[in-house]
């Protein structure tokens, strides 16, 4: 092949004819094209290497982000389970007489039972992957799906948190505002540093509210939403642990 071209070129050049020289030039162009293709190959290989490194980094940040998310989630679960056992205790005391009720520190139990909170994990790595269109750097389809599921589950959880919040703020707490003293309960809450004395306006008699159907129903609602939220949190927890396992790499544990 080369010999063939060489012969043509040789002949063309010795005869010194411009039109024939063009044929030689084509041969030269072929060489340049080969050169360009090789250069592209080198460049592609280099880009690929960079992307591989980047996707390794991404897996690493997802791994550490979810470990952190899971720790916070565990705290949330413990916090809510504790509050819920107080709510259960309040429910067990309904319809009891004053003498029976006085055996317990109801200010503290009610205050404990009202605790709940939102779960807002950091999703900066996923959000950034989506907004920058780099989600394709994650090769595992399963992991990609789990990450989308995570966001979906969080949305569901947030919706029910709004319900839980609404029940607490617009129903239970409104009832309690009219029937107990927050000055007395605050010292058992997360805001104990604001506590000062006891209210002169509350006689510390609880029989009336513990025998009120409305009170029982409101506490049952509280208990119900706590259970719903715990269910969501546990679902999130198992998904997070799955994601943590999938993103585990050598040397990042």
């Amino acid at each position, binding site marked *: 092949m*080369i*010999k063939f071209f*060489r012969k043509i*070129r*040789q002949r063309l*050049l*010795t005869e010194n004819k411009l039109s024939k020289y063009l044929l030689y030039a084509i041969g030269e162009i072929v*060489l*340049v094209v*080969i*050169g*360009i293709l*090789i*250069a*592209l190959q*080198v*460049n592609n290989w280099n880009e690929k290497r960079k992307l591989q490194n980047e996707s390794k980094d991404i897996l690493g*940040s997802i791994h550490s982000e979810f470990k952190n998310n899971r720790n916070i989630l565990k705290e949330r679960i413990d916090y809510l389970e504790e509050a819920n056992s107080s709510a259960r205790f309040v429910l067990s005391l309904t319809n009891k007489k004053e003498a029976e009720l006085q055996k317990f520190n109801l200010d503290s139990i009610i205050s404990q039972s009202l605790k709940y909170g*939102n779960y*807002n994990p*950091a*999703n*900066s*790595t996923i*959000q*950034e992957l989506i*907004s*920058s*269109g780099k989600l394709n750097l994650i090769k595992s389809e399963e992991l990609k799906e789990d990450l989308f599921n995570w966001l979906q589950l969080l949305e569901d959880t947030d919706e029910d948190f709004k319900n839980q919040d609404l029940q607490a*703020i617009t129903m239970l*707490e409104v009832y*309690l*505002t*009219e029937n*107990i*003293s*927050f*000055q007395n309960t*605050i010292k058992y*809450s997360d*805001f104990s540093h*604001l506590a*000062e*004395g006891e*209210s*002169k*306006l*509350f006689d510390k008699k609880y029989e009336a509210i513990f025998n009120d159907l409305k009170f029982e129903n409101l506490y049952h609602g509280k208990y119900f939403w706590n259970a719903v939220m715990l269910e969501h949190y546990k679902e999130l927890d198992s998904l997070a642990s799955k994601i943590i396992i999938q993103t585990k790499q050598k040397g990042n544990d």
Partner: protein
Amino acid sequence: MIKFFRKIRQNLLSEGKTGKYLKYAIGEIILVVIGILIAVSINNWNEARKDKNTEQKVLKTLRSDFKSNITQLQDNIDETEIMVSDISQLFKLFRMTQSELSLIPIDSIKTDIKGYATFNPSDGALTSLLLSGELNIINNDSLKNKLTNWPNLVNDAKEDENLLVENITKDLWKQQLGYQSYIKNPKFKLNRLAMFDDLILQNTFYDIFRGADYQIYLYKELQKEIEEILNLIDEEIRL
């Protein structure tokens, strides 16, 4: 130059030495590869330089946005702290009996909450950065993460802020209607002291008290986060 190369080629070809010609061809290919790689690197370097310039501009806008946010938060903290201390003064009155209360010049005491603070961050630069997906222009990964997460933190704080505002505007103001005369109309005989015997009103004040205290905590957390962001930005900005 071209003439020179052509002569070399001519020589090689006319002498009919395939081996030498092959060497020449490979040499030429290598030269082309090197040339292209150099061109690509120059292009990359130029792009990187342009990105770096844009990054610097973006960082400077972000810095001034966050600086104004930190001042706004400080104003909010100051205002909310005044609210907390006003309410805590009121609680002293709630603890007194009516006969003790009658000895106090009640008109000298603030018995309601007129204003409240809300946090409205200046985040134009950040929003456009996040929406356009150009966040990658920022090199520092921990800064990038913090910036992505910032709107979430603000939303959390705003949620609690809304609750506090609702407590004030919906519950407190409604409950105080019977005790206060905001335009000091002498036609109405008000028993302002009676408000300190109202359990529901006291509980409402406790809700606001607690909410305001938590709001101060949230504002301070946001300030801390901004300080960390500002430190990261300062590290990235060339002097």
